[in-house]
């Protein structure tokens, strides 16, 4: 039976580039031929969450949210808008960062939907963060002598928002590759504004755990960290702030290896995509490091 992949992303009414990482990762996966169809869908753009399934021919769909954390969007909005019958967040049996998959029926199309946890809380996301650090420094062995800051939005409304950031920071710290690893936030303590207070290392790579570049990653965070007074004038990579060289990476979601995380989510839900995973890792520089877990 044909299997289809549907990626669910936020999208934007205002920012034309919000959808770009979604399209890019979909194209990478499409090129592997692992799925009969690969479709992007958006909360704010079209095809909408409400209507994308009716454009898919396959009876069996792997639905992967391109979101960072488990919470409002993954537990309420997406299941409701996709009309996933009998959805209950308990089906994921998650502690906030351990969502798996649930197999449900779509109310309007009758398709079988394997509803996967978001990319942001999958273990391989830690690899993408490290890969992002490699990309921004241009050093495939970056780690020694470097600190790594994983930056999240943070919000008091959803504790899982911070959990996802801390989860990956902890995992990367345990690997011992970087001298220091810290999770920082825009809207809660510890704040990204004070990034240099949290590191002793001279060099600090800052990776925002966001899906797309936009207002937060291109304007707020660079200005908050003191990389620039005005985002429109740009900033250097690295920029020296308070004696530290700050290597600001921009949204992790733009890293090509993100396509691997989408595939891993589908694989965990039973999709037959092992060859595609190997191919995508090869193409996006994500072949597993020897130090990986």
């Amino acid at each position: 039976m044909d299997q289809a992949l549907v990626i669910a992303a936020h999208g934007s009414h205002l920012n034309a580039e919000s959808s770009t990482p979604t399209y890019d990762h979909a194209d990478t996966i499409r090129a592997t031929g692992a799925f009969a169809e690969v479709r992007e869908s958006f909360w704010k753009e079209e095809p909408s969450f409400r209507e994308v399934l009716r454009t898919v021919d396959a009876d069996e769909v792997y639905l992967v949210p391109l979101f960072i954390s488990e919470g409002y969007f993954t537990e309420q909005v997406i299941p409701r808008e996709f009309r996933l019958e009998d959805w209950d967040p308990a089906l994921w049996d998650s502690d906030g960062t351990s969502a798996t998959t649930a197999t449900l029926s779509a109310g309007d199309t009758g398709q079988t939907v394997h509803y996967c946890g978001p990319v942001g809380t999958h273990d391989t996301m830690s690899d993408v963060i490290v890969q992002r650090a490699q990309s921004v420094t241009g050093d495939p062995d970056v780690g020694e002598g470097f600190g790594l800051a994983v930056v999240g939005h943070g919000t008091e409304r959803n504790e899982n928002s911070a959990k996802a950031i801390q989860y990956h920071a902890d995992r990367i710290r345990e690997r011992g590759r970087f001298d220091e690893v810290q999770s920082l936030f825009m809207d809660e303590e510890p704040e990204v504004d004070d990034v240099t207070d949290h590191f002793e290392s001279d060099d600090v790579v800052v990776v925002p755990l966001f899906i797309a570049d936009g207002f937060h990653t291109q304007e707020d965070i660079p200005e908050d960290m003191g990389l620039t007074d005005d985002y429109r004038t740009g900033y250097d990579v690295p920029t020296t702030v308070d004696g530290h060289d700050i290597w600001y990476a921009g949204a992790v979601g733009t890293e090509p290896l993100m396509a691997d995380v989408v595939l891993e989510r589908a694989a965990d839900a039973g999709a037959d995509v092992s060859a595609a995973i190997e191919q995508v890792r090869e193409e996006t520089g994500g072949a597993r490091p020897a130090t990986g877990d």
Partner: protein
Amino acid sequence: MDGEYVDALVDTAPDGIDFDDLRVDREPDGYTFRTPAAAHTGIDEETLREVAADSPYVRNWYFWHAVAPQKDDRWAFLRWLEGADERGVAERYDALSDGLATTWGQLHLRVALTDGERRYHVRHVADADTDSDDLDAHDDPLDARELAKHDDDGQYRPLKTAPSLRTGWAFPDLTAGDLVATVDAFYPATVANWHREREGDLDVSHWRDTVSRQTGIYGVVDTWDRGDGHEHVNWVAEACCDDSQCLKRREWQYDDGTDLDVDGGAGAFPCREPCSLVIAAARKWTKLEGEETRTYEFDLTPSEKEQLEAIIDAVADGEADDIREADVYEGANRYRVRYLRAKLFDEDGTFAGVETDD
């Protein structure tokens, strides 16, 4: 594909074929082959192959069963595109040799035969008569995602079915499957919803259903309906859903028993529920409309009052940028508006010196 359609016909004949003026069966005394142009009975396979090889009816049958996408809506859309319900095969093939064109939103779609096979062409309706050499050629349906992103002025288009599709491109030579994929990339889900409507099972979600479904920051929109009429929803539809703003034909109403009073538009494809742009705008209006009116006093000349009306019209109709620089006869002309501001606003930018909150 030469001959493939003949092999397929011979393979399928034992099951019987009855499609678009073509009937083929295998009887004990041989094959029967009937079209409006020919009738053969008791023929052997070799003869069947000979008559099939030159028959547009056979190529037509093969196309619709082995080449065209088989998903119901895609198949029906391609049939509609060439008027298959109105034209028999002979008439259709005649027409297809010259090419048949139709319009879908702002897309100009054309199908024509090349070496007996259907090939499809897509461009902007405004470019229908443009020389192909003057258009950027594309062959990947997914290029449409990028083409649909910005209008001719470079402005981002958050609504795919806004009548602001950029011009200057063409998909000159597409297969049937790629034609549908291209249309779906420009106008997602329009084919699926059009087909559902034709089949009588379009799942319309009216205003009340849609706003009561909202949660999070959009949950507030539900409070805008206070059981005392639906005038505000008329205004929403007039603002956002008019043909000048969106090419979908609005089929959603206030609720199942209460139609809105404004026209839904004339689009080929239906709109089955308030979209995310409508909901986001309605959230803003819900907050704004929570304010009570109050009386302000301004002194305006009759012409100044009319000028304010002209400015609102020009902005609402997207015509402000089209008013010529020196056309001071238009109320929304930039010099006219700057004069009005210079005369009526005080140094704090307050209209006629009347404070908003007093």
